[in-house]
């Protein structure tokens, strides 16, 4: 039996942590959505579990995504996490090798060098000791980077770091102390007993020159144990809860669990998996362009976790999804915000009794649903009609004379029940038309049709539809030779994964210029309907910054495929901003045309020429 009083803080911390974790794990599993447990049961013995293990290794230990963000930042996370993990593994192996017993006291591997002060090392023990010293060095190097970064975020590629709460800062201090104290304790013992390796031994010998190590070393071991215990007790109450939670999250996600329409135990696990790394701060345009440094997801999740969430923080988000795309933990941050809004939603005073009665709207192959926003950009709707006619499509312009909203803006504001009524109204109208395909010009409607309407017909955004028309040679745009840069709308790109189709369309007749922040990393135009509390100055600042950014591609035209993006960007861009539908429609005309002759009867004449 190995024992010394100083092991108590560590052991107590370990036991308390284990109990608390067990309690929380069970509670989360109970709070899962009905059917989730069944889903886990059916997936647990599949290849998905191996995939989860691989992901845990790559993300929780190696931190691949953080590496992608910045190499030094990645190294910092990897050396701490993977280094510490290996210290635990090799520490266990070392005791296994040394004692030949599988079970030892839980603190024994941690304080191995204290209990085994035999200086006569042989064979494997020399190697183990060297490995342990090397791993300690690795972790310490990560801590050096962490400390430097806290004071100069720029060295790890970050403009701003998270402003942490007091509890987090105390946990951070304990974490930073653990490994320097371990170095001191092991070196001190090595200094008088000679059981160290290539780091601890020389350092111990050096300290032995001027310090009474035999008396002092126990102090270091106490401090080491205290810092470990303090850190472990702080885990459930600080951001470091992400360490045990993220592992669970990765398993559950691989078993196809996700946050749907309701806040469940899985959503809670997502919240607790946030490490508050702060990567979402720099990606947030509310911060970089709107000068708002309090509404980012890291603070949203933190305040939610500590039950201090203010409604304005919930509302003040563009829901552009840039943070979700950048989150190294892979939390569905956008959905988290929407569900919180759902909790806050007030009951709308009126029903929707005034909605028109659904009626069969005639035979058509394709329904065109422009969307409310497209009615504010008649350039887009007229171009789409021109294209339909040129392609000789039997289409029905369902919302020509105005329409009922698709419901998504209500949903984004948390009004799920009201949204459902609009969805049901439109859904019936679409089904009654008998069409096999619905095309919309609005990415917001598009996402809603795809995810909320559950219709047995094809849903296409016009960027997909135009690409299809061109590929099927229904229309043939004439090359314009113009250079264009494409702006990805949030709901179409990050929201629905449509990146290539609009680019393929443009490549048919224009010279598409790349820009650094595009596709998943594209900027939000600022016009988003998702933000419920943004002030106009802030919105204008974002719109302007994004327009100016796109101008740096030095293209002749800024192309996009969203009426809202078009309006936002056109406000501040000196370069013309066009929807791809407008560019396609213009490229169908042989004679150089003035937009004023995009009139219905004239469109038909022009189609004949084509």
């Amino acid at each position: 039996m190995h024992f010394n009083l100083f092991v108590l803080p560590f052991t107590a911390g370990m036991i308390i942590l284990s109990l608390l974790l067990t309690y929380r794990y069970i509670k989360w599993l109970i709070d899962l959505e009905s059917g989730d447990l069944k889903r886990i049961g059916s997936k647990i013995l599949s290849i998905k579990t191996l995939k989860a293990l691989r992901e845990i290794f790559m993300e929780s230990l190696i931190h691949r995504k953080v590496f992608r963000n910045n190499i030094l930042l990645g190294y910092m996370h990897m050396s701490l996490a993977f280094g510490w993990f290996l210290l635990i593994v090799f520490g266990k192996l070392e005791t296994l090798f040394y004692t030949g017993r599988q079970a030892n006291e839980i603190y024994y591997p941690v304080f191995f060098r204290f209990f085994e002060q035999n200086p006569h090392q042989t064979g494997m023990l020399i190697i183990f000791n060297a490995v342990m010293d090397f791993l300690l060095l690795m972790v310490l190097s990560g801590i050096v980077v962490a400390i430097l970064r806290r004071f100069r975020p720029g060295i790890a590629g970050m403009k701003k770091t998270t402003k942490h709460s007091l509890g987090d800062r105390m946990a951070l201090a304990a974490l930073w102390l653990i490994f320097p104290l371990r170095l001191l304790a092991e070196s001190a013992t090595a200094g008088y007993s000679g059981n160290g390796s290539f780091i601890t031994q020389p350092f111990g010998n050096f300290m032995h020159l001027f310090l009474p190590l035999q008396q002092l070393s126990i102090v270091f071991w106490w401090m080491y144990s205290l810092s470990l215990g303090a850190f472990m007790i702080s885990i459930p109450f600080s951001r470091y809860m992400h360490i045990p939670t993220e592992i669970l999250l990765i398993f559950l996600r691989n078993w196809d669990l996700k946050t749907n329409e309701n806040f469940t135990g899985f959503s809670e696990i997502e919240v607790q998996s946030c490490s508050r790394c702060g990567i979402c701060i720099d990606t947030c345009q509310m911060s970089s362009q709107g000068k708002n440094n309090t509404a980012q997801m890291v603070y949203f999740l933190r305040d939610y976790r500590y039950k201090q969430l203010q409604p304005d923080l919930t509302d003040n988000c563009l829901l552009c999804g840039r943070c979700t795309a950048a989150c190294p933990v892979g939390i569905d941050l956008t959905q988290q915000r929407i569900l919180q809004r759902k909790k806050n939603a007030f009951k709308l005073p009126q029903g929707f009794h005034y909605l028109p009665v659904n009626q069969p709207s005639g035979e058509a192959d394709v329904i065109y649903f422009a969307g409310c926003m497209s009615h504010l950009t008649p350039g887009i709707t007229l171009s789409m009609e021109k294209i339909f006619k040129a392609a000789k499509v039997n289409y029905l312009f369902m919302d020509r004379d105005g329409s009922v909203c698709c419901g998504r803006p209500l949903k984004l504001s948390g009004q799920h029940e009201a949204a459902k009524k609009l969805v049901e109204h439109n859904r019936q109208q679409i089904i009654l038309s008998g069409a096999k395909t619905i095309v919309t010009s609005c990415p917001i409607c598009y996402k809603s049709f795809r995810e909320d309407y559950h219709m047995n017909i094809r849903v296409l955004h016009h960027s997909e539809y135009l690409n299809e028309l061109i590929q099927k040679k229904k229309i043939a745009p004439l090359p314009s030779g113009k250079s264009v840069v494409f702006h990805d709308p949030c709901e179409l790109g990050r929201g629905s994964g449509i990146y290539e189709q609009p680019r393929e369309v443009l490549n048919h007749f224009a010279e598409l210029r790349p820009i650094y922040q595009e596709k998943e990393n594209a900027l939000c135009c600022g016009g988003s309907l998702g933000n419920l509390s943004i002030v106009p100055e802030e919105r204008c600042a974002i719109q302007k910054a994004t327009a100016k950014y796109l101008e740096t591609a030095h293209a002749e035209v800024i192309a996009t495929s969203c009426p809202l993006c078009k309006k936002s960007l056109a406000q501040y861009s000196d370069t013309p901003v066009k929807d791809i539908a407008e560019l396609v429609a213009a490229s169908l005309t042989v004679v150089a045309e003035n937009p004023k002759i995009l009139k219905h009867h004239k469109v038909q004449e022009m189609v004949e020429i084509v």
Partner: protein
Amino acid sequence: MNTNRQHIIVIGAGPAGLEAAATLGAAGYPVTLLEKENHTGGKLKSLHQLFPGFRPAYEVQNYLDGRLEINVAQVITNADVISVTTENGKHKVILADGQSMNGDIVLIASGFQVFNAEKKEEYGYGIYENVITSPDLEAKLKSCDPLTSANGTTPRKIAFIHCVGSRDQKAGNVHCSRVCCITGVKQAIEVKMQLPGAEIFNFYMDLRMFGQNFEELYIEAQQKWGITFIRGRVSEIGENMDGTLQLKAEDTLSGRPMKMNFDLVVLLVGIVPARQTLAIGKSAGLALTSGDFLAASDAQLSPNKTTTDGIFITGTCREPLSIAETLTDARAASVSIIQYLNERQKKSECI
């Protein structure tokens, strides 16, 4: 009297620049007046009649041209100023063709441009033929040709939309352009005079009838001419198959959304600083107002002085003004300059 003959450069020969150049010239200063177009008069040249009294715009133009002939030494047209810089108290004015000239005083009177209505795409300017702007209508009225829709027929229902690009945070313009309210009233009456059978509607947020006889004209428009005023912003305009326009708005007095058809829609576009005004202001390092107009060093006490010694501003480059206000402002700027030069001379004599 001006022994050391301080050279004054006036940028812009619109009403403000013309009046200031003539006033300073009459006071004995050598003035060079630079104009980017090939003629003087600026946007006054495109106006038909002035509010509120329907005075023909050419009368004011004739007055300004007459004063110019007598008083100003040098008028240079086709002189597009791109920047103004200051070195050792002297100001250097650089033109687009590379020429430059030095002056002791620079008076910027580079004026405004109208808000680009295409940016409010929901109103369809540049897309629907029957949507025009107030300057478009002014040109039609000035031409004295009968007013028609795009297809040549006489419009029977005409809408005026106020505040297009003014007081519109979404359009990035918070400021009020001041003259569009009364312009809408004036143009509505002019159209009604020409087409007594037409129904005319003005859609407004609120009407700012601040000038002498403005309110009277607004009352006259309703009582004598039967023009209808509806309080509510227009949300969007769509085009019907026959080329007429469907306008969606909310009547905020009755609290109801409404749809109406029109043969012609006139957008009362707001005033924003001219492109040159911004370029000159930035090159000279002048402060700008929130609406990007050139800012005065003190809005109350020295509205025509800038934060740079020797550079003055007048007219609509500093804020939206009517013709009458512009002429008054130009004279005020001239007095400011004369006082400034006198004080400077006194100081140098003391030394």
